[in-house]
Structure formats: C-alpha cells, structure tokens
C-alpha cells in the first residue's frame, strides 16, 4: 500500500511508512473461490468471511501477485486472506473464529424430539408418518418409554435443552405430554439446565385445559400453516375440510392465553403452492406473523410415494423461493417488517462469527449431535427425517431402542460415528473445494434417500443445487442491491 507522508507530523514521530510493509512478503492464507456470475467470483476464508472479486483479482490472489498498492490488498489483509510482515495475528484470529463457528459441537445434543403418538386427525398426502387410527396401544408412547427418554435427555451435557413434542398429532396424547413436562421439571430441580418445551400441533384439538397447562409451564406452540384457506385445506385434508379454520382459530386462542410470540407456524411447499408465494406470505402477514420459513417438501415417507401429485423439480423450487424472497424484500422496503427464516439462518453464517443450530446446515452433521428423536415405540433415530425414512421400511438411521440400548451404545455406535465422519463437508468430494462450504452443511439422510449413499453426488444433488442457488442469490443481493442488503443484514443480527 502507499502511505502518504504527513509533513505536519512533529519530527519526534515516525511517518506512516515506517510501519507499513516495505517488502513484498505477503503470504496467502487458505481460501476457496467459486464463480458467482459473469466475471465475478466469491472467495471465502476458513472462518467464512467473504469477498466478491473480478476474475483478475482472483487470479492475483491465487498466484500471490496482489501488489501492496492494489486497493484490494488491505481488504485481503483485514479479511484474513493474506498475511504480511506488518502482522501475523490473523492466525490467532482465524483460530478463534473457527472455534467459534464450531462451538455448538462441544455442547452436544440440544434438541430432543418426543414422538408421543403417530395417530392423527389429518390425512395429509405429504405426511411421512401419521396414521388415522384409534388404536392407542399400537401408536402411543407409554410412560415407561418416556421415562427412559427423559434419562437420555439428561445424559446430554448441553446446558440448553429443548424438548419438542411431535406426532402424528401430539395433542392426541396430551396426557403423556403433561407427564413428560412434569417429570422433566422435577428432575431439573437438581439438573438446573435451561429447558424449553415446544408442542408441534395442528391445533385442531386444542382445549382451554391444555392451554392453561401450556401457560403454567411456558410451553411454546409450533403449528402448520401452508397458506390461504384453499391451499391449506387442499394440502391438509381432515374430516369436515376445516383444517384452515381450526388452525386460525387455534392460533388466536393460543395467543390470547400464551401471548402473541408464543406461537410460531411452519409451511410446507407443495406443487399447488408454487405459483402462490405472494399469497402464502400475505396469509402469514394477515395472521400477524413477522417471519415465515419457506420450506421445501422433504422427499421422505409417504411424500415420495405421492411425489407425482405433490413434488416438483429443484429449479421450480428455486424459482418459487426467489419470487417469495423478492416479495418479502418489497414488503420490507414498503415498511412492513417480515423476514424469511431460511435466509436468516444462512445470513447469520455469512455475516456473523456465529453458527446456527439448524440441523440441515451443519458439518459435521447435526444427526445425533444436535438432535435425537425418541419414537413412540422406543426406537431412537438420528433426526426427524430418519424416522420418517424408517416408516417406509428403511431403518438406516435407527440408532437403537430405549429399552435395549444404553446412552453409550447409542451415541458411540458405529452407525452414528460412521455417518458423522464420512459426511463432513470439509472432506467430501466437491464440498471440500467449495467456497460456500462454511455456509452449507451435510444432509446424509437426504442423500441416502435420494441418491443411495450418504455422501452423494453433488452435481445432481437437489440439496446442493438448492443451497448453491440461495447462497449466490443472497450474495448478489448483498453486493448489488443496497436497500435489500440493509434488510438482509438486519436479519443476520436478529
């Protein structure tokens, strides 16, 4: 760099060039790059800091020929792509930042999913696991099984534990939810962890009694809302065709008892949703939500059998997602605050030193390390998708059974450890060289289900294609659209 002499500086002091590097000893630190569009490339360093460069600047960076008087030279220094004789503290900082990104690993499993029943009042064609049945014995979790699951919960060293009740329709076995919450709270008097409870429910069956229990124990509610009435009811059939009405009414009732922020909603995108991103987002706004998670349809369980009626290509998804995200940007620019949750998770990885605990965007995988599922029958799975896959007969990600196996048997099993160490993106083909690796993650269940092996083939992977599209879209918006960039930056911090 060129230092300007300061004629007015007292002669008792050294001029700036005394402190700048006068020789060309810059060394390149580890980085990866990928084409963004046209002449532009994205380079990322070990800790996920990024910089967008024209091709010529990438060539210089790779060859180590960036001149100190190139204005990009100092950007390379401060973002830790280069190091020169003026400072070597970049190595310490990179190490700290790398540790920070991986810090959640040390806490171990935080999310514990209790599948309290498989029974459900809905018959959604995209659902992977539910049964419309009145046979309580066959599809409900027993208190004995729940006790074992609670033992496992407290074996996790994580100071922050989240207990999520899933189904089927979890409210059909509310007695067990009540039992688990009370037992966990009892145990926690001595365990002293931060325990959070969430019930995933379609809300159709919620009663005042249940709400009072949720209020007393500060239980969060997570429900499903797929979009406007016609779309929601088409996606989520139940006797009476009133899923939408019951959900909306349920949301209002939950809010009036538990408070506005205690209820969140998730949407699933089907083929019928693809031309309605605006209407879906408007529905969320109209219901008073300030965020929406645009979710891709998982190709598991029943969903893959009905893929013809519900499924769509990755390209169709990408078009839907971009249209939705651009609509959300437009709303924000008009003063309406709403954010998209998947983008927020990715932006947090791009723009902050921190990681997220979102299971599908981690390496090593979040399977077992971030999440574990206790199925109604005592079987233990590495994730929600793992048990959905099992309902189609593929038990590849079943880790054991609460009755038969110890905590050590499960978490030190070859089956789990093999998944973890063979699918780390730091060393899987293509991922290891990808500039977006710090923002991405590994999804062994998806690749096993769609491509027949846990590592998979990236160029034809829907997971890779979707995420790659999103990373490029977000970085283009951050670079080219100042107004959108300001909104996206505010999400990362939230």
């Amino acid at each position: 760099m060129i230092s300007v002499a300061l004629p007015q500086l007292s002669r008792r002091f050294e001029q700036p060039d005394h402190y700048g590097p006068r020789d060309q000893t810059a060394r390149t630190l580890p980085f990866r790059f990928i084409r963004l569009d046209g002449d532009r490339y994205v380079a990322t360093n070990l800790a996920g800091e990024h910089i967008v460069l024209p091709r010529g600047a990438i060539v210089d960076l790779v060859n180590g020929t960036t001149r100190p008087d190139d204005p990009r030279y100092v950007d390379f220094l401060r973002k830790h792509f280069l190091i020169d004789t003026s400072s070597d503290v970049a190595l310490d900082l990179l190490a700290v930042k790398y540790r920070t990104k991986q810090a959640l690993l040390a806490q171990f499993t935080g999310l514990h999913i209790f599948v309290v029943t498989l029974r459900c009042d809905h018959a959604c064609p995209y659902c992977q696991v539910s049964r419309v049945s009145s046979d309580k014995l066959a599809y409900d979790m027993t208190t004995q099984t729940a006790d074992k699951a609670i033992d496992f919960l407290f074996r996790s060293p994580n100071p922050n534990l989240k207990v999520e009740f899933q189904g089927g329709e979890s409210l059909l076995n509310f007695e067990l939810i009540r039992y688990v919450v009370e037992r966990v709270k009892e145990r926690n008097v001595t365990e002293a962890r931060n325990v959070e409870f969430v019930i995933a429910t379609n809300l159709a069956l919620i009663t005042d009694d249940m709400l009072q229990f949720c209020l007393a124990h500060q239980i969060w509610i997570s429900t499903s809302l797929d979009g406007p009435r016609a779309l929601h009811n088409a996606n989520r059939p139940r006797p009476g065709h009133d899923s939408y009405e019951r959900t909306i009414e349920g949301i209002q009732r939950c809010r009036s008892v538990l408070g506005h922020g205690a209820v969140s909603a998730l949407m699933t995108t089907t083929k019928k949703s693809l031309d309605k991103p605006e209407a879906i987002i408007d529905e969320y706004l109209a219901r008073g939500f300030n965020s929406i998670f645009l979710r891709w349809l998982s190709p598991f369980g029943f969903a893959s059998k009905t893929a013809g009626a519900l499924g769509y290509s990755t390209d169709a998804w990408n078009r839907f997602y971009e249209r939705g995200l651009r609509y959300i940007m437009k709303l924000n620019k008009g003063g309406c605050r709403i954010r998209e949750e998947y983008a927020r998770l990715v932006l947090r990885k791009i723009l902050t030193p921190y990681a997220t605990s979102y299971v599908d965007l981690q390496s090593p995988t979040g399977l077992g390390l971030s999440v574990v599922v206790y199925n109604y029958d005592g079987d233990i799975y590495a994730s929600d998708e793992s048990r959905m896959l099992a309902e189609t007969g593929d038990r590849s990600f079943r880790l054991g059974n609460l009755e038969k196996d110890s905590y050590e048997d499960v978490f030190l099993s070859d089956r789990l450890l093999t998944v973890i160490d063979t699918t780390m993106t730091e060393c899987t083909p293509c991922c290891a060289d990808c500039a977006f690796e710090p923002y991405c993650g590994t999804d062994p269940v998806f690749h096993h289900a769609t491509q027949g092996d846990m590592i998979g083939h990236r160029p034809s992977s829907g997971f890779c294609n979707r995420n790659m599209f999103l990373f490029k879209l977000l970085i283009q918006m951050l670079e080219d659209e100042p107004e959108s960039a300001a909104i996206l930056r505010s999400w990362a911090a939230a």
Partner: protein
Amino acid sequence: MIKLYGRIRASRSTGEPLIVRLTSDGELDSTVRQQHAYLLPNVDLSNAPRGFAATVSVSDGDTPLPGGSDSLHVELPQELGYLGPGDIVRLNTQAREVRVLYRVNSPHNSLFVTERCNSNCIMCSQPPKDVDDSFLVQDLLHAIPLMSPETRELGITGGEPTLLGEKLCQLISACREHLPETGLHVLSNGRLFAYLPFAHRMASIGHPDLMFGIPLYSDLAHQHDFVVQAKGAFDQTIRGLLNLGRTGVKTEIRVVIHDQTYSRLPQLAEFIARNLPFVSHIALMGLEMMGYVKMNLGTLWIDPVKYQRELSQCVHTLDEAGLSVSIYNHQLCVLDRSLWPYARQSISDWKNEYLDVCQDCSVRDHCGGFFASAKLRYSDYIQPIPPDQVTCSLAPTCKAVGSSSCP
C-alpha cells in the same frame, strides 16, 4: 474546570508526604485520627481536637499561619476550598504542594498510577515520561482504604498501568478488598496481556466489576502501529484482547477519532463485529486537545462534522451486530441527529466546559460539552440547537423525556 493541585503553607515540615482523608468530625475514634486531617471551620487552632495527622484550613488571604503548636497545620489555597469531609489529599509539606487524590462526591475519580508508557500515541493527551514514579502506587495503596465503599466507579489511568505488573494486581486486589461494590475501569493499551499468564493473573484476582478500556485505531496493523508509534503493537493489543476474553476479564474498545483514524471507521466496525464480538462496549471518542495534540494538530485535526458519514456507518454496523456502542466527547450540534441516542456526557466534571454560544442551546443539559482544553480548536459548526429542532431521538437515553425539563 476544577483544580486538583495547589500550593500549600504548612506550620512545619514533615518527612514523608501524608495521605489523609479530610474530616470535620472532632469526635472521630482516636485509633484512626492519624489517617485523617481535621478541617477547621476557621483558622482558630485553640479549640482544635488533638490526635489528627494535621489540621487544615482554607486560606483567607494573608493571615499569618498560627504557631505555638507541635501539631501540623496546613493551609489550602482558595481554589481548593471546595474540598470537604471524605475527600482524600496528599500533603507534601516539603514541596509545599497538595494533590487531590479522591473526591467523595464526584463520579469521576481516577487513580493515576504511572507516567510511563510502552506506546507513544501521536495524539496522547498525557505524554509519557520515563521516570521512576513507583511512589504513586504506594500512595494509592494508602488511599484506597480511606475511600468511601459507596463509590460507584473508579478509573485507573496512566501512562500504561500494566507496566506496573504485579503492583497493578495488588492495587486491584486492594480495591476488591476495601471497595467491593466499586466498579473499576482501567485505561490500558492491553499489549502486555499478549502474555497469557498475566491475563490469568489479572483474572485470578476475581474482581467482581473490572473492565479494561483498550484502544484500537484501525483494522489494519500498520495503521494502528503508526498511531501508537510502536511496531507490533496491533498484534499485541489484539492478542491481549483475546487473552482477556479467554480468561473472563471484561474489555471495552476505545477509538479516538482524528484525521488519521476516521476514514476506516466503517471497516474497523466490521472487523470488531467479526473478530472481537466478545467485548462489552465500544467507545468512539472525540479528540482531547491536550499533550501531543498541540504539536501534531495539523496531522490530527478534522472537523467532526466532516466524519459523520463514517461515524454513522461505524455505529450502525456495531449496533446491528448487537454490540453496545457509545459516542464520547462530541457536542450534540456536530453529530448527526441519528447518532444522538449514542452520545454520552462523558467528560470528567473537572475538565468539562461549555462555550458562550451554548448558553441558548435547548439540549445543553444533554450535551457532553467540551474538554477545558478545547479552546485550542473546535468545530466550525458549534451552534445552539433551537427547541423546535429537537426531536425525541434523545428518548432512549434522555431521563428528562416526559418530565417538565424535557426539551
């Protein structure tokens, strides 16, 4: 500006300087009288209680010092007439001087621990001197037990306090023992904490409310090193911050804004948010027109009005990253209105002043005003804010909002 130093007259000479707390309690327990000086209501010594280290009065002109007594009597100059019970002074009868070490009613007490420094910042307001001043700490170790345990905060400043090494740790331990409720804020360049054992030693004191305020002037090593005039200082300071973070000692980053630092404020904010997000606070500070600033004014001076864009970006980036950020030493009339909520009245009471033009300003009571040294150079844009230009952007910090004194 309040004076903290003055010439005295003494009835006799003592050997070592005396560190005493002033009192007007003539019934004070005799066991502690030797640590106190009795404030006489007048110069009449005849009824003065006995057993105190000294009796003290404020000069009323040319009255001769009362004699005829073995006990020490000291006459303070009139400008120190504000001193009262609970204040602590150092009386040097040989040099005939008094230094105020502590004022019980001030929120801005600082322990000045050394004049030595291992940096030589181009804008230093307190240029370092390479002298043996270890007596300063010895005096303070005597003074600390005399301070009010209700003191809310104490500063520790220099020079570079960490050059004292173990002595600094002793001083902080003494504060922990005698002033357990008092927050300690140490101004340090942090370089010596690049030695991890020293950071561990500091952490091991277990002071419940200790923070190190550490300057960082650029995201680029060579620019920071130039400002502090020490090669390798950036790396040491960064390692020091990391080590303090690692050992659980709270830190604050302090940035003095001048012509050599303003242009990279946005990049510095990004660097801090990405690399040092564990710091408790970031203070962005205006230039104090003291010390080296006089000789380097041409290199350092920029009208604050001209760096509002960089300052706004910097504040916004830090705020968005969830970091706590404040602006010190800036007058409200030169700050962007959007920055008012971050502006603090930060100048110590003893060097704080306002200009004549400020008299008609409707936000004067919320404004940090000027260092007493500011007359050397101040912004061309100082102007009173008329009441109709005051928006409630002050609301987040202003205690007056909603009350009758609300502007």
